């Protein structure tokens, strides 16, 4: 099927779509600029807003929020040493010292230009790679889909090096929740406890809203105000972009896009990896942490580079690159858009329109960032006593409106409490949500593959794609396992040394 890009661009430039890009990007910057509110939360809470919009306008709105929030987090990170989103934590390391030295304007400029470049390049890669990759997914059989789901989980735990087992276990918790409902093969009810609302399973969106929005609000209850600092707008002067930032932005963009493609907590990891790369490359390494714009350039290009990267597996295979992409996946599904090749053929106008809108969203936040960034830092001073009920109200609307079910609001609350407990004990809530999303894909793949092979597990090794997927899974788990062994040996050696000393 031929894609008419001129029609797509004309459609994109319709007033309602342009308005959606602008509103989405600005809302994203606002949400990203408020510590405690995350991009995941913003996208998830936005889904009900998109119900009555056309799918393309709804998606553009969510894409704008995603791009805007990734950038917005850097503003309070630079001016107040309080990252608006976890992904902006690396930016604060050099951004805030620069602000203290009277170069807040320079830090903000580097941040927005790096974010813009990272976002544009990764969106371009998404445009280039997504369709061919989606076409490859046609060659996937049930066994390959099961392995793909495993790969998704391996991606999450490979990034949770500190607690590999807990990371894996979190993913399995999500997979277990996903088995509640109707059996795919026989149609009998499993683990529903007679509750009719569970016949179709536990919806992942109320769970996601609970774990990413309400949990966050529970954690804010003890804080009068999230940010203690003050911003004096008069002290922020416009400064030129320093020279030599190009290679750090390039490194950040590349690292961000690659990390974004891997399922996991993309943006934060991407920003820190990019920051570390930049530190290794820098001629003024000793200035890192003391106000080096190179660190900001790499970190911001890294976290915005994640946007396009994370959408590649989301749109092509239905495996979200991170929790924001998972929320976006929920939005796609609500509008009846199922990831895969059809998204680029049958629904090509919507999908390509959405991808192209990411370029516009980057341009919008570039303009806003260059001229109005300091004003957005004021938003982060909103008292938590106002923020908590407001976000909770939107969370309730979001959870309810997925299925028009009050039961889903209870699901949201239950998962908020579960998320709080798991989060405080080192389990990964992202992995739980990812497990819930991957669960049906994994189960269908596993069950159908075994039915085809008459119960023989050899089907999971029966194709080249299956072997490639096994290879990637092994690779994703290899380094964390090596790290665990190393740590165990070091720990053992320390204990032995202590015993000898005693």
């Amino acid at each position, binding site marked *: 099927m031929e894609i008419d890009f001129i029609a797509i661009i004309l459609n994109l430039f319709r007033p309602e779509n342009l308005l959606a890009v602008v509103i989405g990007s600005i809302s994203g910057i606002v949400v990203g600029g408020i510590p405690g509110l995350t991009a995941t939360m913003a996208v998830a809470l936005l889904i*009900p*807003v998109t*119900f*009555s*919009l056309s799918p393309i306008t709804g998606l553009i709105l969510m894409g704008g929020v995603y791009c805007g929030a990734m950038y917005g987090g850097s503003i309070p990170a630079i001016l107040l040493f309080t990252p608006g989103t976890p992904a902006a934590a690396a930016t604060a390391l050099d951004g805030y010292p620069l602000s203290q030295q009277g170069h807040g304007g320079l830090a903000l400029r580097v941040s927005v230009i790096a974010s813009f470049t990272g976002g544009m390049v990764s969106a371009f890669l998404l445009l280039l790679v997504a369709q061919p990759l989606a076409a490859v997914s046609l060659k996937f059989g049930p066994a390959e889909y099961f392995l793909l789901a495993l790969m998704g989980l391996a991606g999450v735990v490979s990034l949770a090096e500190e607690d590999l*087992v*807990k990371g894996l*276990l979190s993913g*399995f*918790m999500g*997979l*277990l929740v996903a*088995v509640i409902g109707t*059996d*795919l*093969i*026989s149609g*009998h009810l*499993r*683990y529903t406890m007679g509750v009719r609302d569970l016949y179709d399973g536990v919806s992942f969106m109320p769970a996601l809203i609970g774990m990413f929005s*309400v949990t966050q*609000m*529970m*954690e804010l*209850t*003890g*804080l009068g105000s999230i940010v203690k600092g003050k911003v004096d707008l008069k002290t922020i002067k416009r400064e030129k972009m320093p020279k030599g930032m190009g290679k750090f932005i390039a490194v950040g963009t590349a690292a961000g896009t690659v990390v974004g493609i891997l399922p996991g907590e993309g943006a934060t990891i991407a920003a820190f990896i990019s920051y570390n790369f930049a530190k290794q490359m820098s001629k003024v390494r000793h200035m890192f942490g003391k106000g080096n714009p190179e660190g900001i350039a790499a970190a911001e290009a890294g976290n915005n580079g994640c946007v396009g990267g994370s959408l590649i597996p989301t749109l092509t295979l239905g495996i979200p690159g991170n929790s924001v992409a998972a929320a976006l996946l929920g939005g796609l599904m609500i509008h009846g858009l199922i990831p895969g090749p059809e998204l680029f053929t049958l629904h090509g106008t919507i999908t390509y329109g959405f991808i192209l809108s990411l370029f516009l969203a980057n341009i919008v936040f570039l303009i806003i960032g260059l001229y109005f960034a300091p004003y957005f830092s004021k938003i982060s001073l909103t*008292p*938590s*006593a*106002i923020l*908590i*009920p*407001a976000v*909770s*109200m939107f969370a*309730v*609307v979001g959870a*309810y*409106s997925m299925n*028009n079910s*009050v039961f889903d*609001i*209870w699901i949201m*609350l239950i998962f908020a*409490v579960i998320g*709080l*407990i*798991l989060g*405080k*004990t*080192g389990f990964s809530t992202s992995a739980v949500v990812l497990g819930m999303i991957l669960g049906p894909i*994994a*189960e269908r793949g*596993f*069950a*159908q593959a*075994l*039915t085809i092979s008459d*119960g023989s597990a050899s089907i999971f090794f029966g194709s080249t794609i299956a072997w490639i997927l096994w290879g990637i899974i092994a690779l994703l788990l290899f380094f964390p396992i090596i790290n665990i062994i190393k740590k165990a040996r070091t720990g053992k050696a320390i204990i032995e040394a202590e015993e000898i000393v005693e």
Partner: protein
Amino acid sequence: MTKKIVDFIILFFCVVIAVLLYRSTADFPSVSQNSTANYIRFLALSTGILSLLQIYYSYRKNDNEAVEFYTDKKKFFAFLILLIVYILLIAYFGFILSTALFLPATMFFMGHRKIKTIIFASAGLLLFLQVLFVSILQVPLPRGSIFGY
């Protein structure tokens, strides 16, 4: 409560769930025995093994650091109770009325004492919700059983 104890509680719960799940698959219809039942057995086994492994790690780690689920006990539980009451009220009184009660009450219990701000913020949020969600976007909101829905 220490992190180690909370870890043990969660992990033992996982082991129990894994055992129950594994046993439950015996009651699955025969048509599912070679497919979905096997999938659940795979999940149960993996969860059980991982939980036992983590119990061993947690036991060795000696993590006696206390887990703090909240920084302000009163506000945390007040918020939790307010949320529960809010959801209960939604089912009876519908969304708008319940939210009109929830917003100012939560602002107050979370420590905001400026009555004017509470009234204006609550009214503003409700108006925004009514105009954007109900009037413009026509998002269905719960109307409550008391009004016959």
